[in-house]
């Protein structure tokens, strides 16, 4: 039997006590994580493998099959990825990008400037550019002086943050695979596709030629599609999966209290009460402004999103440079203020209630928060009915502008503020709800001012302040709260989770303790 002397015990104890804080202070990625098979539950079926289709249903695969030119830290600081450096011209009308050497696509083809040019070409095509297309509106043309350099020219001087957003949005696709990218992945990412069973799941394996050192950590990545949030939670609790990606806030809150790890990234969505200001009583500005005070934002956040998020009166996540917390206090839930504005509208009681609230019946949170607003409206003497529609019928009404008012989330709220115009209700032209000419020219001018503010910090801040002021005055969209998308709930044996700026799922740094 081995015995330990008192002296040995004391020395060992001191050594352990000294080492423990050091070990705890190491970042998860730096710890010795083990490989294996990472099993991930997702709640939506993949649409396709096109990285320019940045829909939430594709969020779990994009950053695992592809790399972007640059990446943002969770705090919004740009970092090199496939672009090793970038130089913005002093007049801010072009950017020169140096591409990484020694990178290959999954097919084995070396990564060069031709693939970036092909990607830019696709993004600028209105039929193929998908979510990237609107971001390309600032781009005039592009060229490749050599295999490792790409120069992008802009139509006018562009704010630096907007240029960085463009580079972060550009995910190079192999040139020869660009026409078939929806069905065959063509990226440089840390994992390669093994198989896919539509409606059931997806299996990826580690890319043996990946350019980032010691990544990915796990050898296999298996996604299983669950149709029910509760079933995914049960799978995690029973040990059938290691991670749930993009589950509901309510389940995440419950699992967190049960001891599971919950990771929420900066890429939140903002819930917005969208108002069709071309219809009925909503043509009246004072009537619309009353809705700034009719939103029980705290109740909406608690009931609809398990309290995970923040109440906001502007369409920005806290990470946005235009975020201003003072608006949340100034435009808080206040029925007396709402009543005063309703009285000032001069509308009769019959005119005020002459509309229905469109509701997404497929989204439980939307049904709940719409009932909260319905109750608030009842308290100020506006009894309205809910027009609940399901699936495609709802989407068609939402995007086609066939509604008086409806809740709908907006994205891109943590980036350059004018990116908010990628959401239909905030479009400055060809707005499917408000139509052309835009009924709120002060808003269109405020967005133009933000886009044109390429000077000093004071000019930029003034443009953001002006936009915030115009948004609450015009009141055609009433934000209520930010909420989580792409939530990651993990068992305690998993570590190394990387938070991505858009909350895409990044598996390359994840391993087992």
């Amino acid at each position, binding site marked *: 039997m081995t015995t330990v002397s008192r002296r040995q015990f004391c020395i060992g104890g001191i050594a352990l006590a000294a080492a423990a804080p050091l070990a705890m202070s190491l970042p998860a990625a730096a710890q010795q994580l083990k490989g294996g098979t990472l099993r991930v539950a997702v709640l939506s079926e993949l649409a396709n493998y096109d990285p320019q289709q940045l829909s939430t249903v594709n969020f779990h695969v994009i950053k695992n099959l592809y790399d972007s030119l640059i990446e943002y830290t969770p705090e919004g600081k740009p970092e090199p990825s496939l672009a090793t450096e970038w130089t913005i011209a002093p007049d801010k009308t072009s950017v020169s990008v140096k591409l990484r050497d020694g990178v290959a696509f999954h097919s084995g083809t070396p990564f060069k400037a031709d693939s970036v040019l092909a990607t830019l070409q696709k993004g600028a095509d209105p039929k193929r550019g998908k979510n990237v297309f609107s971001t390309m509106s600032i781009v005039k043309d592009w060229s490749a002086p050599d295999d490792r350099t790409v120069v992008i020219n802009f139509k006018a001087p562009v704010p630096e943050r907007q240029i960085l957003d463009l580079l972060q949005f550009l995910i190079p696709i192999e040139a020869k695979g660009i026409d078939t990218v929806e069905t065959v992945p063509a990226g440089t990412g840390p994992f390669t596709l093994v198989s896919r069973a539509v409606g059931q799941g997806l299996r990826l394996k580690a890319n043996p030629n990946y350019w980032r050192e010691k990544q990915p950590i796990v050898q296999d990545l298996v996604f299983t599609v669950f149709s029910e949030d*509760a079933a995914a939670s049960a799978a995690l609790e029973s040990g059938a999966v290691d991670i749930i990606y993009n589950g509901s806030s309510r389940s995440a809150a*419950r699992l967190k209290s049960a001891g599971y790890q919950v990771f929420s990234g900066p890429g939140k969505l903002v819930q917005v009460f969208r108002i069709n200001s071309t219809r009925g009583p909503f043509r009246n500005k004072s009537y619309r402004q009353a809705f700034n005070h009719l939103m029980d934002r705290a109740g909406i956040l608690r009931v609809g999103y398990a309290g995970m998020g923040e109440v906001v009166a502007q369409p920005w996540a806290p990470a946005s440079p235009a975020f201003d917390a003072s608006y949340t206090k100034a435009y808080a839930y206040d029925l007396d203020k709402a009543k005063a504005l309703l009285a000032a509208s001069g509308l009769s009681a019959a005119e005020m209630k002459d509309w229905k609230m469109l509701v997404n019946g*497929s989204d439980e949170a939307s049904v709940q928060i719409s009932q909260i607003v319905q109750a608030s409206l009842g308290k100020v003497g506006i009894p309205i009915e809910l027009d*609940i529609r*399901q699936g495609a019928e709802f989407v068609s009404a939402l995007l086609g502008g066939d509604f008086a008012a409806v809740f709908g989330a907006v994205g891109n709220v943590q980036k350059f503020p004018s990116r908010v115009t990628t959401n239909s209700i905030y479009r400055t032209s060809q707005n499917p709800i408000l139509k052309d000419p835009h009924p709120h020219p002060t808003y269109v001018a405020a967005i133009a001012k933000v886009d044109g503010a390429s000077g000093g910090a004071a000019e930029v801040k003034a443009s953001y302040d002006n936009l915030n002021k115009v948004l609450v005055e015009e009141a055609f969209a009433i934000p209520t709260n930010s909420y989580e998308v792409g939530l990651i709930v993990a068992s305690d044996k998993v570590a190394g989770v990387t938070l991505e700026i858009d909350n895409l799922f990044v598996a390359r740094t994840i391993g087992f303790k």
Partner: protein
Amino acid sequence: MAARRDAMSAMLGSTLQVLRRLSARRSTSLSFAFLLLVALAAVFADVLPLDPLTQNLADSLMPPSSSAWFGTDELGRDILARVVYGARTSLVTAFGAVVIAALIGVPIGLVAGFFGDWRDSVLMRCIDVLLALPNILFAMALIAVLGRSQAAALVAVGIAGIPNFARIARAQVMALRQLDFVTAVRSFGGGSSYIMFRTILPNALSPLVVQAIVLASIAILLEAALAFLGVGVPPPTPSWGEMLRTGKSYLHEAPTYAVLPGLVLTLTILSFDTIGRALTALLDRHDTGVPERRGR
């Protein structure tokens, strides 16, 4: 006039006899009692101190307590109040659906069975087409056209019940139309409509009453299923199916939210079913005076 009074009193007497025999079974009397309780709650919900609509977000998902016997839902509304008012939704839908199904289905069955010939073929092929469509799918399609409302749910469930009434009525007419009492009425100059509705129908009522009870339970279940699928009565109107749909998301935090409305729904359907089965058994054993008149 006296003959009609005699017929009425005979029918009342046989009905009371049936009820007495049904009540003799403990399961049936319990079912009657439960359904009576549900019906009374639905009818007198307005006079009870219950409010199914007022929200109290600060008290959401509370467990059962003395102030809220069934607890509260995610919007802080009293679940008991919503169950009671939900009974009104379910029973109105069931009653309306049975009336629609009977008013359309029975005449179709009577005409088809009485005349036979091409009318029988055409009507029954139409009924076959209706039967071939799954009830829930048909109801959802109809609601998609009519819009989401209690009236739409009621009509959808009612139309789905037409084939059952039509086929039972047709079978009854085919069995009765050759019997002596029908021949006698015809020999006295009774027209087709008179014979169908005044002579045959009263003698074919028993299986149709059983069918009405069975359809009532199916209608309640179908209405709940539609609400569960999100196409039933729109909120905030209380509905048992809607409560089940929402409550299932809170099974961990507030199990009573889904369980208690689900229990009431189950017991209601079970009660209808128990009474329907007991009634069928009684009629099959020729325990009433009605079958004798049918000449068996």
